[in-house]
């Protein structure tokens, strides 16, 4: 029996689901290898089913989403967060801890209560997440490899080293040494140093290495390099504001 798979999306740009649709060369192989029960972005047909693997994109921002996520979790043997929104809460979390949801609503809608929303949180704030495929968007190759493992019933090997490793393996010069605010040392690798290889400083779209990222040390190094704390904080918050150490960083 082919593994039953569901692909779901919550608050986000749907870029990770689009990435899966964009697989082109491999899409047919992938679809052939599994029993796709639900992929709302690709087809409106949704089967009520149990899932061997559920891929979930997006952050959770409403009570309805939370309920739906909990349903998916109950029906899924393995739940995989795909993309930065699902992994960390995404760009929409970047003001968490600075502005409350109430303040944001008031700013946009005035005093009228439109609907109930939550502060943007990753899936793991509500349900158990078995594996995270980070990135904004996810990496095609990484997704395919992980999918192959998951379909076989194995958890994939998680990347837990920084972007710097992949930068050095490619013999890239260090952008921090060139005076750029590169978040490579804090950021989960696996992107093959996509941006720094083009001499663009890492913006941290794959999130921080949990329990490892040396945020305080980086703040010190960036400060000594002459970057303003406000700017550093904004950069750190863009993709990983919900990481406790980053949430605490003062502007």
């Amino acid at each position: 029996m082919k593994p039953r798979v569901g692909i779901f999306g919550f608050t986000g740009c749907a870029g990770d689901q689009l990435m899966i649709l964009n697989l082109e060369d491999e899409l047919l192989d992938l679809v052939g290898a599994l029993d796709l029960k639900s992929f709302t972005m690709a087809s409106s047909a949704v089967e009520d089913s149990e899932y061997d693997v559920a891929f979930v994109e997006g952050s959770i921002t409403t009570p309805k989403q939370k309920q739906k996520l909990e349903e998916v979790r109950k029906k899924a043997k393995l739940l995989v967060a795909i993309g930065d929104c699902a992994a960390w809460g995404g760009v929409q979390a970047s003001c968490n801890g600075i502005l409350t949801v109430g303040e944001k609503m008031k700013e946009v809608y005035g005093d009228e209560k439109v609907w109930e929303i939550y502060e943007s949180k990753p899936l793991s704030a509500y349900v158990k997440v078995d594996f995270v495929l980070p990135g904004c968007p996810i990496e095609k190759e990484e997704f395919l490899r992980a999918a192959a493992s998951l379909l076989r019933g194995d958890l994939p090997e998680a990347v837990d080293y920084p972007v710097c490793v992949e930068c050095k393996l490619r013999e890239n010069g260090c952008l921090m040494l060139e005076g750029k605010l590169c978040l490579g040392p804090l950021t989960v690798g696996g992107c093959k140093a996509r941006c720094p290889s083009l001499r663009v400083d890492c913006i941290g779209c794959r999130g921080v290495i949990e329990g490892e990222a040396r945020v305080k040390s980086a703040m010190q190094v960036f400060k000594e390099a002459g970057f303003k704390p406000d700017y550093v904080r904004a950069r750190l918050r863009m993709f990983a504001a919900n990481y406790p150490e980053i949430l605490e960083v003062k502007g």
Partner: protein
Amino acid sequence: MRYAKLAKADLPKLFQSLKGYGEVFAPVEERGKLFFKKVEDLKEVKLAYTRTLLPPKKLFLQPEEEIMSYEGESYTEKLDGRKAVLFGVHACDINGFLKLDRVFLDAPRDEYYARRRENTLVVGITCVPDKYCFCTSVGSGYASGGFDLFLHDLGKEYLVRVGSGEGYRLSKQDYFKEAGEAEVKLAAKLEEKRAGKLRRKINLMGMGDLIETEGKEGWEELTAKCLACGTCNLVCPTCQCYDVSDLLTLEVRKGTRVRRWDSCMLKRHALVAGGLNFRPTVVERTVNRLSCKVGEEVRCVGCGRCTVYCPAGIDFVEMLSAVRGEAR
């Protein structure tokens, strides 16, 4: 050792001979970055240089390589038998090879490293040190072996030291001339002059014990800025650590086994299945790294790369003098 002389004007001839042996990899400068790269013409080569970003060990122990493929549970090795030439290697990096040889050529030898090492000619050349070099303090300022040819710059010509049978065959080409005592004396004098320019010194007396007994607070202070990014290891000519991963394809039964340089400053280095990490913090990892480089034996070759390329500006030599109790 056999000695020969090569006029600088005849260097292109040697280069041609080397090309006849195999692909030539040499230091090249692009956009201010120096690295070993495959070259076709001597004109591409930067003959006088300080250091490349990655050490030339990358040719023997590749940064990332497929070591085997599998189908079902049957594995097929992927060994490389190509002949190659490493042209323009400095004494520190050649001494780095010797240290890695002891790891990878000792039984049971690593076939991947061993075959490339055996199939690669190493041609050394006089270096241009900068303020970060300290090879003379760790006994790596001069290469006594580990190369096929070593070119000592004597001004208009090179003294060529011949270090292997293949080197001997090359030195029999008609563009080489005989050399002896006079040229060796001159080369030694010039090497000494060059070594004299090295201001950086490192005192390793008792260093292993100093590292072992340095307190936690001291280490925390010394590593406060460390980003645990692994750069120091990844640019080191004597770091040997590697990790191995299986890469699965959608075809499930087929895939590859890949190995990649690893760093002892990273989380997974001493992490065992089940979640216990034997070196959980940057402090333990730094103690391990320094012990490995200069505690147990002197594996550091003084090339300065870990200091030059550290994004946090942590200075290897300064860190060790601090451990000795000299001004922090």
